[in-house]
Every structure is written in C-alpha cells, then in structure tokens.
C-alpha cells in the first residue's frame, strides 16, 4: 500500500460498512492520547489514532489489511485517558468483529483460531488442546503455520503443558449456554 495514494472522500467505490464503529469514535479529537498511551503501539502497523481516521474516512478495506486491532490487549488505558470519553477498546473489538464478518483474508487465521477455540469449549466445557489444534490447523490449511508452532508445541509438551490424550476433566458441554448466548445476541 502506498503512503502517497490519494484518498477520495466520499469514497466512490462501495466499502465495508463501518457505521457502528464510526458512531463510537466520531467525536474523536485526534489528540493522539490513545496512541501515546497504548502499550502495544510499537508493534502496530497503524497507531490507534491513524485507525480512527481511516474509520472516519470509510476506508474499511485498508483497516482490514491492518493488524492493529488484533494487537489490542484490552488494557483500557486509551479508554481511560481519552479526553472525549470514547469507548476505544470496544471500538477495537468492534473492528475485529467487522473484519470477521467481512471475512477479511488477513484475519482469517485469527478468526479460525477464535472459532475453534470457542467450539472446543462449547463441546467439552474446556479446551481440549489436541482436538482444538487439529481443527485449527485443518481450517487454516497452511503447513507453514504448523511448522512455526512446532517448536513451541514440543517445548510445551516436554513440560506436560500439552496433554496428548483427552484431558481428564469433569467439565460438561456448554452447548446450552452457547445457544442461550446466541439467542440473546440475536435479539435486538
């Protein structure tokens, strides 16, 4: 992506709908307190302030190419410091959800991770690491990803942090709870 690319406003081409996030942050003053206070800002490709600007300018596709919102560790410092009292941490999560809904390619891996992690919990009441990893790797279909995680996996296994069998657990399926949550979320 070129830094000098001209931004057209209002955008001519159709864009992903970010109106919900936009409403959350549109009172932003661009003071930069959020970016200054973010402990993860150094790892982000865009600072939070940059991201809010893109939201205001309706640049959904650029935002979804960014990893900024996935790096949010929900420390809430920005929300606490924002002179406009904006729900910035929530806005980060809203972007994450929007990216998921938009099936953004860049965030496919993260989305698959979230999905199978929760799926494992839904079925068994806790994470069944081997089953979860199997489903996750199968969904991503990226052998490099498996290789990248191999070393870590072996170290964890060596310390007994990655049981290879089905873990002994008294946990029960949480399917009912998940169904109820979906019901609540579906109702307006």
């Amino acid at each position, binding site marked *: 992506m070129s830094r000098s690319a001209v931004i057209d406003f209002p955008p001519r081409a159709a864009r992903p709908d970010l109106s919900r996030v936009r*409403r959350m942050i*549109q009172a932003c003053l661009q003071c930069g307190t959020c970016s200054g206070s973010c402990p993860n800002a150094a790892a982000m490709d865009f600072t939070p302030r940059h991201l809010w600007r893109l939201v205001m*300018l309706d640049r959904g596709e650029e935002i979804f190419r960014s990893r900024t919102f996935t790096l949010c560790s929900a420390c809430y410092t920005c929300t606490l*410091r924002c002179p406009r009292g904006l729900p910035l941490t929530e806005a980060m999560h809203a972007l994450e959800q929007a990216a998921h809904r938009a099936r953004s390619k860049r965030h496919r891996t993260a989305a698959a991770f979230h999905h199978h992690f929760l799926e494992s919990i839904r079925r068994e009441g806790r994470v069944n690491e081997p089953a979860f990893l199997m489903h996750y790797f199968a969904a991503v279909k990226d052998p490099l990803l498996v290789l990248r995680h191999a070393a870590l996996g072996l170290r964890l296994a060596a310390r007994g942090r990655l049981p290879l069998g089905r873990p002994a657990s008294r946990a029960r399926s949480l399917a009912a709870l998940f169904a109820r949550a979906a019901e609540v979320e579906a109702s307006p």
Partner: protein
Amino acid sequence: MNARIGKALVVGAGIAGIRAALDLAEYGYSVVLVERAPRPSGLLGQLDRQFPTDRCGMCRLLPRVERDAASADCLRRGLFHERIDLRLNTEVAGIEGEAGRLRVRLRRPSGGVDPERCAGCGRCAAVCPVEVPDEFNAGLTMRKAVDLPAPQCFPHAYALDPSACTRCGACREVCPTGAIRLPGAERRSFRILLVDDEWSVRDSLKEWLEAEGFSTAMAASGPEALAALREKAFQLMLLDIKMPGMDGVEVLERAKQISPGLDVVMMTAYATVETAVEAMKIGALDYLIKPFDVADLIPKAVERFERFAAAEDPPLTVGAVVLCGGSEGYDPLSGKNPYGYGVFPGVLTQVEFERLTSATGPTGGRLLRPDGRGAVRRIAWIQCVGSRDAGEEADFCSSVCCMASIKEALLAKALGGGDLEATIFHMDLRTAGKSFQRYRDQAEERHGVRFIRARPHSLTPAPGGEGLRIRWVEAGGESREENFDLVVLATGRRPAAGMTALAERLGLPLNPWGFIAAVPFSRCRTARPGVVIGGTCGGMVDIAETVIQASAAAAEASRCLQAAGGGQGAEERPAELSDSVLRELPRVAAVMCRCRWSSPPAETPEPVLFALGRDPEVATVETADALCTPEGRRTLAAIRARAGANRLLIGACRLLQQPARLRDIARDGGLTAGQVETADLALCSARTPPDAQAALFALRSGLARLKRSEPPAARPIPVAPAALVLGGGVAGMTAALVIADHGAPVELVETSERLGGNLTWLTRTIEGADPRALRDDLVRRVEGHPRIRVHKGARIVHAEGEVGSFVSFIEGPDGEVRRLEHGVVLFATGGREAPALGFGYGESPAVATQAEVERRLSDGTLPVGALDTVVTIQCAGSRREPRNYCSRICCPASLRLIEAFRERRPELRAVVLYRDLMTTGFAEAAYTRARGSGVLFIPYPSDRPPAVRPTGAGAVVAVEEPILGRPLEIEAQLVVLATGIVPALSRELVEAFGGRLDEDGFFQPADAKWRPVDGMAEGVFACGLALSPRTIPEAIATAEAAAMRALGLLGRERLFASRIVARVRHSLCSRCEQCIAACPCGARRLDEELGRVIVHPVRCQGCGTCAAVCPNDAAILEGFPPPQMFSILEAALG
C-alpha cells in the same frame, strides 16, 4: 465631587469587582465592595506580568479624571476611592428584595485582626506557632496562621486565618495595638448536644469538644435528647442513628419540630450510611461514619461555630448587586490523570509557575529546579489539563490558558536566558483575541518557543534523575520522548464554589457548565433583575473581556439604580474655599501622637518637639493621645482651630498614612488633603524608643512639604452633555440606549439607510438565539427614545475638539450640514466579512463565503436538499500576514452553518478544514456536538492551505491528511470560505478625535488589557467590531462598557483636573516640542495660532515625563514644585 443618590453592592474584589466598583463610583454612586479574602485584586494580584506588555498594568483601571478621588496607588496593594467602601474578610450572608431595593446581609468571621488598629509591625506573625500553606504563593511556601495576606499589601494589615488558628493567644499578647481578637472566643456559648446510647462514645466526644472550648451536654437516648432540647437552646446536635427505643431518624424529625434552626450531624456505623443519607434529606446537615477520627469531627464543629459566631454587619439596602466572584483553578489531583502532580516536585500548575517567576515568590523570581539540581533549562507546558475534557465534565475551553502558557514561556526565556528551552504541547492553540496571533508567531519565530500539536498522555520520572520524561505521538504516528526539568500543567478553570453556592441562594440559574447563566445576548444580566454578573463567574474570559464585562455589569447595575430613583444627587462643589488657604502664609500646627497601644506609651522625645517649635512657621507643637482613633481626630481638629493654623503636621505612625484616614482627618479639620501631612515615626510598632534624629528628619521633611504646597490650579473643563455614537448596528444602538437611559442626549449617526448593521442578515447564533428579534427590539427602542436622535444616511464631514467639548459636522442625505456639540464620542462603526481571495472563489458557483451562504440559506436560494458533501475552509485569509489576527467568530459560524444544513438534510457529510479550531469558552460544546455528529475535522498547516479545483457544478478540495500522511480529495457541492472580519473604520475620522487605529485597522485601545474600550484620547471610546472581531453578546458587552465609561465623563457638568498636572511656563518655552513627543497621554500639542504648547489638564495624568525632558525647565508639574522637592530632600538629609 460628583456624588449621586444610590448605592450598589459589588461582590468580589478581583479585577472585575474593582472595575465595576470604580465605574459605578466614577459615575457618582456609592459602592460597597465585599471580598471574602483578606486582600483585594484576586487572582491577578498573584500574577506579576500580563501579555502583551509583560508588565502588570492593573493601576490603569484607576480613574483618569477626578484622579484625586482615588488613591493613585498600586491596586495589588490596596484600593481606595472615596465612594467605595471596601470590606475585606466579608461574605454575603443573604440578599432579599427586588431590584432597586435589595436588602443585603454581610458576614465576617468571628475573630481577626482589626485593620483600623493593625500597624503592620509583624510581631504577631513572628510569634505564631502555626504554619499553613500560603495561598498567595499557590501553596509553594508556608505562612503563619496570622500573617500578611500578600507581601505587597498596604497598609500592612495582617490577617488571621480562623481555620488554621489554634487560639493559643501568643499573637494577642505581643500585639502592641491590641488589634487581634482570637477566633472562637465565644465557643463557650456554642452548645453541642451529644446523643448516643454508648457511654464511651458520649464521653470521648465530650472530652474532644470541650478541649476545643465548646460547651457540651449528653443524652443517652432519644427521649432524653428531646427533653434536653426543650429545656435549653443548642446550636449543634451529634446524633447516633442506631439507638434502642427511638432511633436517630425519629429523634431528628422531632428535634426539628422543637428547634427548627438546630444543626444536626448524624453518627452512623458503616452499615447504616444509607440511613444517614436519608436523614440528610429530612434536615440533617452531614454525617460521620463510626469509628471517626477526631480530626474529621473538629473542623465540622468549627465550621458550624464560625457560621454561628460570624459577625453580621448592619444590613444594607442597595439598588443593585454586581457579582464578580471569579472562578477557581482546576485541581489536577481531582482528575483521572494528574500527570504526576503532587508526586513529582517538578510538575506545577500555571499559577504555581507564575509564583515561581515572581520576585515575591518562593525563589525570589529565579527559575530553580525543585529537585535542587540547579537552574531550569527545559520546560514543557501541557495544555488542556482539566479543560476540553468530557472525562472531567469540562466540555468547555477555559479560554485563557493558551495565551497564558505562551506568556509564561516568554517569561521563562527572559528569566532563564537564551538557552532555556520552552515547549508547549497543545491541541488547538487558541489565539482568538486582538493581537494574540502575532504574539504567538513572535514567540515561535523570534524567541524560539517550540509548539507541538500533541496531547501527552502521561509523565514519568526520567531515568537517572534527569527530571521528567514526556512521551507523545506525532501526527504521523511516530513516538517521541524528551526529558524536562519542569512541566507546567495549563490547568483549566472551574466555577468558584462560593459563587455557585451564592447563586443558588439567590435563585440564579446556572448554565450547563456550572457558571452563572446570563440571559440570551447578554453577558451580565441574570434571570433576577437587579443582580448582574461581571467577569469570569459567568464563564471563562481573559483580562480584557473581564474588564469589558465588568464595565457592562456596572452599566446594567447603574440602570437599576437610575430606575430606582438614583442619579439625582446634587453635585458637590470641590472644597475650593479651603484650598485658597494655601495661598496664605503657612501656619502649621504640629501634633505628635502619644501611642496608647504601646507599653510604656511611646511618644516623640522632648528635644524633637523643641527643635520643631523653633521653626517660625510652626504655630504650635503639641502631643495628644491616640490620633488614630475618632477622639484623636477630634483633638486634632480642636488643636488646629485653637492655634488658627492653616496646615497640620502629624507625627504618628504608618496607620495615619492610609489615604482614607488622611481624608477623614482633613475633612474633620476643615482642610484639604494638601494641607495635612503625616510623618511616620513608627511609634506604636517601634521596639525601641524612637530615634530623635530620625524623627526630626521625618518631621522636617513633612514640614517642608506643607510649607511649599501649592493650591491646585482649578481649571475645570465644561462638559457638553451629549454623546455622539457613530454606527447604528447592535453595538451602536446598545451604547446609545445605555447613555440615553441615564438621561444624556445621544446623536446616533448611521451611514446606511437603516439601523441594524450585521443583524440585518444574521439569522441564528451558535447558542440558537435569533438575532432578528434582538434587532427589531433595539430599533424600536432607539427610534422611540426621546433622547436619541438618529441620523440615517449621514456621515461626519469634519470633527475637532477635545474631551468635554467635541464639535462635529454631519452631512445628511439631503446634503445639509449640521453642527453637533458633544462631550464624548463612541465608535461603533462595525465591521464586515473580509473579501474572499483564491480557493477557487469566483471560478465556481459552489465556492462561497460564510455570509453569502448565510444569506442564501435564509432566503431559500441554497438547495440544501441537493447537497451531499460540504467543505468549510477556516482561516481563508485570516491568521497570516497581512491579516494576521483571528476573527474569533468564523469557527463557531461554520459549525452553526453545518448544524443548519444538517437540520434540513441529516445525512449531509461535512468536512471542516482548519488550522486551530477557535471555539473558546462554551462554544467548545458546539465543537463537541459537531464531532459527535460525525463532522470530519482535518487540520492543515498554514503554509499548505487546501487547494480548490472547480468541477462543473461542484468542486474538489485537495488537502494533506496529517495523520495518514496522504493527500485527500474531497468532492463537494459547496465550499464555504471563512474569510474573517475586517473593520469599517475611517482613519481620518478616528484621528480627528485624537484616537488611533491598530495595524489591522481596528480601533487602538488605550491599553489592550486594562482599558479595552477607551481610546488613546480621553472621551473617545469604541465598541463592537470596530474594536475587534467578536460575537453578538460580546459586542453588546463592549457597547455597554463603552457607554458606562462615557457616562463617567458625561455624568458631570465640569471635569476637574488633578492636584498634580503639567503646565508650561511660556516665557521659558523654546517650542522644541520634545515634551509633546514624550507625553505618553497625548495631552500636549502645539497651538500654531497662539504659538504655544498647550497642555490638556484632564488628559494629563501628572506623570512628569515632560518636566524631565524639557531642556529649559519650562515644563513643570503643578502640585509637585521643584522648590518643595528640594526643601524636602534638604530636610530629610538634615
């Protein structure tokens, strides 16, 4: 000299209160000025320097004509005016009644230092064992519980802080004049009933409270308590909630029936706090949670006692009340993000920093690092701490902090030398005032102050003790870190708590930001007739606007007094008769004080009396008791009469040098101030017997002054009673109405064919009010007023004259020329929108100015429904040379236009391209609203303005988006240019009246801060846009202020010069004109016909510059003759 019937109360003796009080007093009314603090001059008394002069200048508030009515002294030290009754340490207890007849109760704390008696020796502070933070130094130093309120205070009236005093009595024992009364001397009579079922609680309460001097009684149950209440009167009840049988809430209800005025404090365990809160709803005053600390309990009891024991002054009846209670500083510790304030010593508030730079501050004005590591080299200012912060419930801009920080940065550079680095971190840098932008630019370009647009989020100690580290993020996203020695927080302002409480008691509504609300289009009228506000208690404004609003408040108060039958007082003649005595040979009565307060009684040594008596012009030398008392004054008058003396020399102490006392002595003795002289022999405060030699020198210099004092040159100037007002817009009409309502005739000249000025096309203000209704109302009242003559389609063809006697010739539409005589002139000639240049203006129908859009919007020719995207370009020609000033109204105007578009088309996209968004004060709320509704705000740097490319029916605006660092192209159907305001003032006309224009063509006030509506020449005033760009309510405030200042001159038949005024000895004058060039008041001119240099006796302020530059000794200062000065020096040197 010009007294009127009618009295006003002014609450608060900060600069607003002083201005309002002086305006009312100058017009002739009596004023009671009350101040809660022990010193006048408020916040400004703590600040040594103001921009743009980087000096103080508060004394410029003092009267310019009839100067002798006030003491020409520093207002930071004290205030004296013969019609102002200044009461310090005094609060308003209540105001009842209606405009014209308001009954006021005033209250003073129970103990304190009697200012009538305090001789300022300082022994009390020397022995006082209690140290508390000194408010004057913003808590950076400590003071004693009895101390000077500020080092500069004169007379040196020490003040006692009742909340800090432990009543040890040490000060009372050492006070030589018996001036100190300990607070709480009556605590025995303050009875407290302690109700608790537990004996241990009752008993410990009893012990604590009796140790503090209170009387107590105990009750073990509800019924017992009620019985005690029926039997005896109590002032306070401490009541347990949980008791067997009758519980505390029930006792409270019944107790309130027996003794409705009883104060009750509930005592509760943590579990029953909710009950305590309920109890407060039915009349309990407060609650304490058990187990409580004695340190929490005692202040509550003392506070109740102070209210009980406070001495009430006899009630007053006044015609109007002016509230000038000011504001208070935001405390960073109360917020979510205190930036290390209170933790790191290098973090200061602005007021603390100002004290640090002051010669009377903790370091004597040297910029030292608080950690003791030497001089300060790097300072950062962080703007908007506690302002513009929704999280701190401050959806307003405090308006003053940006300029204050720039001034402080320059001050630091001046104090710390060239290599001191000053950095200001800001959001928008708000330079929305006359000359502010150029001051900022100079700070950056000439003095190297660094401006960074960023809001640092936090502050940490730098590693290795290298001061404080600030981390911030640049617009582009880069993170930066730097270390600083000092960090100054530009803390915002808040409504003053005491003022808010008073407003609530008076039934005055508050605005959404907690300040006292004014009615629409006014800055000073409140919902309650007869009660007006001036200065920052109605919202944050800078010094100039404070002074303007205070004068406007005085005008409104004066209207109330006028309507209540004031203003008809007979004009007192000055005491010309006794002044003529000064022409007689001196015959001096010398009276020495025998101090009653010192022990043994101090008096002037015999040899001194003998030496004094040998002077042939001394008729008698006597010693009398306690000259500072009323009896002493009577003795003085009797001695003078017996000796047949025409001058009075007093040997006493500093107490008798107070202007008010001197004035009383002269009046009682039938003399004028010039005939009385006091020598300070420090009798009462001296620790050793007076030194005979020094006393004799002091007395002889006083004698020399008396002998050589000259009668004043009484050359009164007649005043034509009419006012000429130029311009029939909102400012001109308002000013005309104020003056005419006070009984003076007004000639209102308007060049166009109709009245109304800019109100003829404006349709809505940012507050949502309709200016057209205001215009119709003003026009109707002006045209129907019997004392206003309106000249439409007329212009001034010639003008001449001076204050009191201007002559103007006006040409009407029919070509007929009329001659008008008038005492004063007010320029209300207004301003208009600056012409648009560039930005595609004229090339596309889609590009229009704000005024054009406003007109098209109101006549319906703008197709709002067809608009999809609107762009406004702020500062389109403003804030860069040659128009390098902020027009102040264009930012709010753009927001208002967008609001108007959005009302008709909610889905409209709006983009505001701006440099700094100037929504000062409460206009900030409109900015928040606009941001919240999704308006896009994009800042642009002044050297890279947006480019507009017309495209058929619309335009594409290209601008660099600073955060993304990428160009942005906006396709808009309408581009609104905010071009700013230019004045419509004719230089020739202003100069014909002796006024001047500033470099932008606006009216040049005599002093930008302290005399903002007065011209460089006396009798010439300006208001409205002629002065500087401003909103409608602000223009109205200037009009009322200018009218009030004009009334100060018009309210009298003749103007009297001061005792000290310059004169020319024509026989010695060589007409070199050096004095004319040197005169700072423009009081001198060369009369070509007479061939003489003429001095205008009212314009002359008696500074003596002319006498200093004159090579021939032809320029002299009357009332300050050189022979007198030489003989004083001779006597003083022995």
